[in-house]
């Protein structure tokens, strides 16, 4: 396996040399070009400029694609390794002498076994109950609150917004003890309420996102609604909501993925086997012994499939949605 290390080192060295040479050439040729603009340079220098910019173009191109391919490979490799390992036998997984990427006989039965051992269906249903109970309410309530901020008259608007945003500074770990105590007293441990209740009042970050989006919708639409005698709720339902399609879709996708991957809060409140979410089931599967490893990877792969399906299907929301929150919010 040392050959791999050597190849890697050579690659890295080549990259480094390429960067250094490219930088040296490009800065010198840039200097010369600037001189040329001002007063003219000799033929030899001109040749250098031509050579170096050609070198830079090719070298820079090779370097750029090299970095992209390396990053891509690094990003994908763990997933590929997960799938490859999920098709191995327990012996192959713990074989230190020979690492194989393509197992001799793919053990598709690992998936069936993972599926049944940890009651994936139950975990999936529990996760879906949480998704279904939180997403619609949270999305509607947050966008209504955003409507009050973006299109309605309100005194001290900035102060209200800042107070609400300040809640984002508080880490969940800091409120978890009193909340846990309260839920315990209310008998909410091992129910979905601790995960559903807080979202019923909307989410501040989602609200902030919607405010940014709603500001882009012209006020005139709501004024004409007002003249036609529409109340605020009607304006919201009949004018605002139909126009918020892309924003809501993006937030639904984000929230679905967030809920799907949520681990900290569910791990505190859901300890009974029959209420565990998919992620918790996966965690308990991974606590088993080493012989179970292939099933664990199969289970992990199964939990990733819906995520990636959604990711590829809603590709544009990831880029667009994040871009708005990313540059709009500061902190």
């Amino acid at each position, binding site marked *: *396996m040392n050959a*791999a290390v050597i190849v890697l080192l050579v690659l890295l060295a080549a990259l480094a040399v390429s960067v250094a040479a490219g930088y040296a050439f*490009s800065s010198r040729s840039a200097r010369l070009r600037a001189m040329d*603009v001002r007063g003219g340079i000799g033929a030899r220098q001109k040749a250098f400029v031509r050579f170096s910019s050609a070198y830079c173009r090719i070298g820079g191109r090779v370097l750029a*694609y090299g*970095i992209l391919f390396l*990053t*891509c490979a690094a*990003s994908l490799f*763990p*997933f590929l*390794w*997960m799938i490859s390992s999920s098709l191995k036998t327990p012996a192959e*997984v*713990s074989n*230190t002498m020979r*690492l194989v990427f393509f197992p001799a006989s793919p053990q598709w039965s690992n998936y069936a076994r993972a599926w049944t051992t940890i009651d994936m269906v139950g975990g999936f249903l529990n996760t879906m109950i949480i998704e279904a109970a939180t997403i619609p309410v949270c999305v509607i*309530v947050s966008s*209504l*609150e955003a*409507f009050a*901020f973006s299109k309605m*008259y309100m*005194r001290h608007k900035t102060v*209200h917004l800042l107070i*609400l945003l300040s809640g984002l*500074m*508080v*880490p969940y*770990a*800091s*409120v*978890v*003890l*009193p*909340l846990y*105590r309260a839920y*315990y007293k209310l008998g909410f441990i091992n129910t979905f309420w601790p995960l559903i209740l*807080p979202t*019923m*009042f*909307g989410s501040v970050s989602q609200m902030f996102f919607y405010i940014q989006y709603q500001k882009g919708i012209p006020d005139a639409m709501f004024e004409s609604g007002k003249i036609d005698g529409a109340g*605020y709720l009607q304006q919201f339902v009949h004018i605002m909501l139909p126009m918020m399609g892309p924003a809501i879709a993006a937030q639904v996708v984000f929230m679905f*993925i967030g809920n799907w*991957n949520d*681990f900290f809060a569910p791990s505190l409140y859901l300890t009974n086997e029959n209420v565990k979410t998919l*992620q918790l089931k996966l965690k308990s599967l991974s606590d088993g012994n080493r012989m179970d*490893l292939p099933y664990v*990877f199969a289970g992990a792969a199964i*939990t990733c499939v819906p*995520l*990636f399906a959604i990711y590829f299907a809603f*590709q544009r929301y*990831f880029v667009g949605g*994040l*871009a708005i929150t*990313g*540059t709009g919010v*500061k*902190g």
Partner: protein
Amino acid sequence: MEKVKIRPGRLKRKEGRIALAIISVKYVGEIVFVFVPVLFSILYSFTDYNAARETAPFFSRIGDIWIGFGNYKNLFTHFMYSEYFLRSVCNNLFMLLSVPLGIAAGLLVAAILSQPDIRFAGVFRMLIYMPVVAGAVAMNIIWRYMFDNQYGLINSLLGTQWMWLTDDWLVKTAIVIKNVWGGVGRTMILCLAAMLAVDGNYYEAAKLDGAGATRRFFAITLPIITPTVFYLLITGVIGNLQMYTDSLIFASGDPGAQTVVYFIWTFGIRRSMYGLAAAASTLLTITIMIITVVQFRISDRWVFEG
């Protein structure tokens, strides 16, 4: 011209009342689920409250269990707890390394992808962002296996026998590597959006003045996208301070990778020592608040606002 302040009319005031009524929903939510719990948490931190040994309601015996700053003192000096706590703090600080490293790597990739003549930029972007979408549990499981002391892929590739999962420093390094891997995509997408919004005229002008690609990046792109980089840095640090899943699953609670939130979980939820855990969580809240406020102050001064 003098600005005349007009008292809003009756309809306006009615509109204001309705708007307040609407956002009061969010106020109720914030008060019930954030502000009151924070106050309780602070209150707990001054007491010797142990939920498992509760005889009477908390408030009826708050005088008996009040110990002032005792918990805070214990966190730093008590022979049983200070070791845990200080170790968690150090681990957290070390693992913050993944934030600047992830941002640097993401910036590099974004700078390349923002060039107009790169082919398949969309495909690269899509694939590089994938780790961000994947669930933390599944990713911790697979990385744990890749870093495994005995059967790990990384040890066999390097031809070493390093104790990635149990050595105090290696386990932190492994988590940093894993989190850099997980963070590149996020930085890349956000920085790319910011870079593509930069006015192309700046680059034209710089090219005429003879600035190379590297120079253009550091003199134009980077200063203009500082708000995004700063946002990533702050949210990254805040998110990193709240790390928990990595300690629990990747390191399976190994002392070398315990974090402050893991400390809160161990002492608060598992051992029911609410006072001690609340003191730690109060310190965490204060830290995050300071970071946020400082960020607001600094970003006014040196962040470019186009």
